[in-house]
């Protein structure tokens, strides 16, 4: 059965002799106008984990992800990737990639140029870059569309281009901010399965933000449950189902049990808030 960890900031047991991929040390975010986007969070993510940040709108999950990426500065506390501050990730020899909610492609450039962008910005020689782009496109199944413009592709395909762009730098850490939220359910399921494949094939560490309980249960090895007003982490759950996870898992009784546990946690968190208000 699933073991729930009820203490808010309990850290999962660390495998010995490995440096954690991501450490969030009491990082919080308060905006100048007083809005508390995120209360202090303590979190540790080991290499190779697939962690989901799950919660309703306003719970600070995107804020937390952006702080890990270095796109936002915490008002207090620190974030470390492989024991180095986020801004100095290059020193650790590791790489980080970010996938946004929308594909965020350059509409004037072909798929190939879009995927090649991070390599061009880093100054990778053209020949090597083209090889890596071809490889990345093959990974996401878009090798035949390398010369197409983004407008010629469906939403799901554009998202795949965005993922290819994330993978072309051969990252160790992949951060994804509700990447499949704008897609239809069928495409979403397909991409979820493909993402798990890529995660295992490339031995990535993934932090995935979503508001979908089902997506969280299907994808992750660990779910970090968050609540809103103010944004905070409330519980963490381990999903012990072994990989690879098939579509059968989604309709199995264990799945429903996990989903219910998460659902209950969510309700507890929102009702606790209501009690405090009253």
């Amino acid at each position, binding site marked *: 059965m699933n073991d729930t960890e009820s203490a808010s900031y309990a850290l999962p047991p660390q495998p010995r002799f490995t440096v954690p991929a991501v450490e969030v040390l009491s990082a919080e975010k308060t905006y100048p106008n007083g809005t508390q986007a995120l209360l202090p969070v303590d979190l540790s993510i080991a290499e190779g984990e697939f962690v989901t940040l799950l919660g309703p709108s306003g719970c600070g999950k995107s804020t937390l992800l952006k702080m890990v990426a270095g*796109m936002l500065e915490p008002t207090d506390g620190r974030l470390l990737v492989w024991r180095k501050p986020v801004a100095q990730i290059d020193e650790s020899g590791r790489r980080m990639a970010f996938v946004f*909610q929308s594909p*965020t492609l350059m*509409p*004037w450039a072909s798929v190939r140029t879009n995927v090649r962008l991070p390599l061009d*910005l*880093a100054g990778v020689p053209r020949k090597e870059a083209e090889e890596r782009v071809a490889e990345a496109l093959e990974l996401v199944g878009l090798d035949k569309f390398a010369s197409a413009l983004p407008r010629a592709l469906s939403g799901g395909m554009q998202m795949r281009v965005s993922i290819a762009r994330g993978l072309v730098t051969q990252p160790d850490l992949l951060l994804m901010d509700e990447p499949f939220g704008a897609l239809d359910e069928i495409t979403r399921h397909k991409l979820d399965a493909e993402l798990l494949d890529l995660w295992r094939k490339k031995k990535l560490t993934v932090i995935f933000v979503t508001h979908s309980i089902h997506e969280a249960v299907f994808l992750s090895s660990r779910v970090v449950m968050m609540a809103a007003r103010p944004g905070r982490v409330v519980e963490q759950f381990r999903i012990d189902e072994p990989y690879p996870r098939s579509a059968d898992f989604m309709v199995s009784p264990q799945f429903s049990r996990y989903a219910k546990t998460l659902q209950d946690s969510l309700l507890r968190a929102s009702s606790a808030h209501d009690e405090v208000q009253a």
Partner: protein
Amino acid sequence: MSALAPTTAAGTPPMTAPTTPSRTRATSSQAAPKQPARTPLLQQPRVQRVIYPLLVGVVLIALWQGLVTAMELPPYLVPSPYLMMQTLVTDWVPLGMALLVTLKITVLSFVVATIAGVLISFLFVQSKLIETALFPYAVLLQVTPIVAVAPLIIIWVKNPTAAMVVCAALVALFPIISNTTLGLRSIEPDLQSYFKLNRATRWQQLVRLRIPSALPYFFGGLRISSGLALIGAVVAEFVAGTGGSGAGLAYQILQAGFQLNIPRMFAALLLISLTGVALFVLMAWLTKLALGSWHASELSQD
């Protein structure tokens, strides 16, 4: 669509992309008529865009000719279109030379305005402080009527041609500054975050992100400025009068006015109008070249 047509016992029909849009599958109950593979010429938007305005033009000219003949209007008041064209042909040498001069000034001032405008926009985008400090003066450029400023410029700048170019460039400058600055700032925020995440240098951001994002706005500015450069060239010469180079179409109009040669005046006006249209068409073609494959403004169906 053929995919929903009743199938044979073989089961679901293979999902093939239709090669020609209008071939229908003949079912057993009726014979499907073969439809033409292309839309008829008159229904193509490309053709419509030329034919329909041309038709309106023909109607208006016919109306004009009819009124002049019917009301027996004298040529020194309202020349008929026929007389105007006749004058254009007979006076082709002076009018043609004048056209060349006006065209030269228009093109020169347009190029100067484009280069200056783009450079100023780059400057504005580097620092919000600079933009805040200098933008009101750019606005001043737009609202000052050139007819008031031209005489001063003609006195200050010795070379008459250079004076015309300066006047016309001043008129054409503001839309380019305004539009290009707007375009350089109109970048998708997530895309900008992505560039920052990848530690892009300012130069990389400018060349790979800002400039392509700015192109639609830039071309919008070009379309406006091309016409303004022409207007500026003509107005400057009007204002210069006999103090100018005396070689452009505006001078021809002034001269024709003094001599009451109204057909010639009309002919010169026609040439100016046609030049304006030609400039606009050229800009539209350039826009399509640059944006045709990817921007909504060139791709939308209506």
